[in-house]
């Protein structure tokens, strides 16, 4: 899988309230509607001008705060191709993968790119190409790759349940199905 897009660059500790405001959590229900409020309290330009496949580059602790999944959904639905950050807050990290939104931990990219730069991510080789330079990132564990490739946790669970057979050892998230069924 390869993703190519323009960079939207942000700093440290971008929390879920500014990604998707609490006041919308029970009033905005349509996933496509959520996209219109993405990053509203941090960068109102983003929801207006982001193009499909654009890539967010951020500092440490991206997505800290609430467990609200809309923070992952609104970015996915707004067309974000991937998020590269120095680090991710735990619940948001899981939420992104469960939504099938690829995320990458890297500390090198921030110094190399500015807003609007075009970069490319190759998940096959584990490389980011930015300004003629190539940066390596560790490949996903097999079970995480399975989640992302299936388009998120729900399609992944459905697929496994429909298959009827317990998933292969090492498929991680659904190992427990073997124990329960």
């Amino acid at each position, binding site marked *: 899988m390869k993703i190519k897009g323009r960079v939207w660059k942000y700093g440290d500790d971008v929390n879920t309230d500014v990604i998707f405001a*609490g006041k919308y959590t029970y009033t905005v229900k349509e996933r496509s509607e959520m996209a219109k409020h993405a990053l509203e309290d941090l960068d109102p330009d983003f929801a207006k001008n982001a193009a499909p496949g654009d890539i967010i580059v951020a500092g440490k602790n991206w997505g800290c705060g609430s467990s609200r999944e809309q923070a992952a959904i609104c970015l996915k639905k707004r067309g974000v191709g991937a998020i590269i950050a120095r680090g991710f807050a735990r619940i948001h990290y899981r939420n992104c993968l469960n939504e099938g939104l690829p995320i990458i931990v890297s500390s090198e990219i921030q110094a190399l790119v500015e807003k609007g730069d075009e970069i490319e991510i190759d998940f096959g080789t584990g490389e980011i190409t930015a300004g003629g330079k190539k940066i390596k990132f560790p490949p996903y564990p097999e079970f995480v790759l399975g989640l992302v490739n299936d388009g998120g*946790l729900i399609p992944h669970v459905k697929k496994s*349940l429909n298959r009827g057979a317990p998933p292969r050892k090492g498929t991680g998230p659904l190992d427990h199905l073997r124990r329960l069924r």
Partner: protein
Amino acid sequence: MGKTFAEKALGRAAGHPVSANEVVTVEPDFCVSHDNTGPISRTFKKIGVKRVWKPERLVVILDHGVPAPSSEHAVNHKEAREFMKEQSAPHFYDVSSESGVCHQKFPEDGFALPGQIVIGSDSHTCTYGAFGTFATGIGRTEMAAAWATGGIWLKVPESVKITATGALKPGVSAKDFILKVIGDVKSDGADYMSVEFHGDGIENMSVSERMTLCNMGIEMGAKNAVCEPDRKVLDFINGKEKSSDWEILWADPDAAYARELKYDLGGIVPGVAKPHTVDNYAPIGEVKGRKIDQVFIGTCTNGRLDDLRAAAAILKGRRVAVRTIVIPASWNIYRGAMRDGTLDTLLDAGCIVCNPGCGPCLGAHMGALAPGEVCVSAANRNFKGRMGDKESFIYLASPRTTAASALTGAITDPREA
């Protein structure tokens, strides 16, 4: 090499010994969710499984917008209500005088038990660590999958050991201690980790104070936060345990930690988290005198009876200078405060008392802020826009500091109130 609490609790649930950084799949003892049960049930239905794996393990407590402040909220409540009925799931807390904020009500009714695994579709699920529970927040989709399959994958976290000795001085609260800790550790300092609170300083704290500490574990990124369950915890849960399959677990003295911090509680002073991050700590002296527009005392962090009493002790016989919103964390607490005169004291001082629930903590209702307004809040988050307008400002503080500030209309040291 000994085991940490997280290694023991997840090992017990996995059925074999585990060590930090292993990924295990476990069956949760309880799954807690709130108003987001409606959306979770919609996702659950998409999976194509008809029945929740064990309906008696679901605990659903409506609290984020109660009573419904809009028809959109009401639709969520309706969906949750209908889903729980359809699943014959017994533990549903509707909008009634039996309820409260989920993180208060869940332990109050005996669901938070030592050594058990609890997952919750709310980041402050970590509160139950005050009872020796391994409790962690997850997203909605993940909850739907757990309802369908009865399992969740968890990485066994590394652990941070925070040791507190001594006792807090008069006018200083457990909230002041945890704000200082978060200021030191920073908002991601415990990301993906289990935070253990050790030491005689913790032993001397009440269960309510320990809930305040564990509640804010997520504000330093923690997966869970936990205190050793002792006699106080056993007395609290005695007779109301909702499951018999629990066990007191605690870290071995020779367990391995990623990081260790030590505090003398006698050295802690009243403090605040300045806008717009929880780790933006300042001792009260640095922010004293800053003008405020609103005070909020309540939430899963600091809406318990001892919190309301501490505020009332400062407000007794005096008059607030700014609008002051008090929200007890549950109806049991509301009744307790009514019986012992705390509510009268607060009302006499000019506070308003709203019905138990999350209230303005996440900006939904009951006290949202206008542009430029400043609130001193006993809650757990001060992110930009959290309580309403994105140009408003939130200072987090103890109930004592919020009460002292309400009297003067400016941030005030409770030791001088």
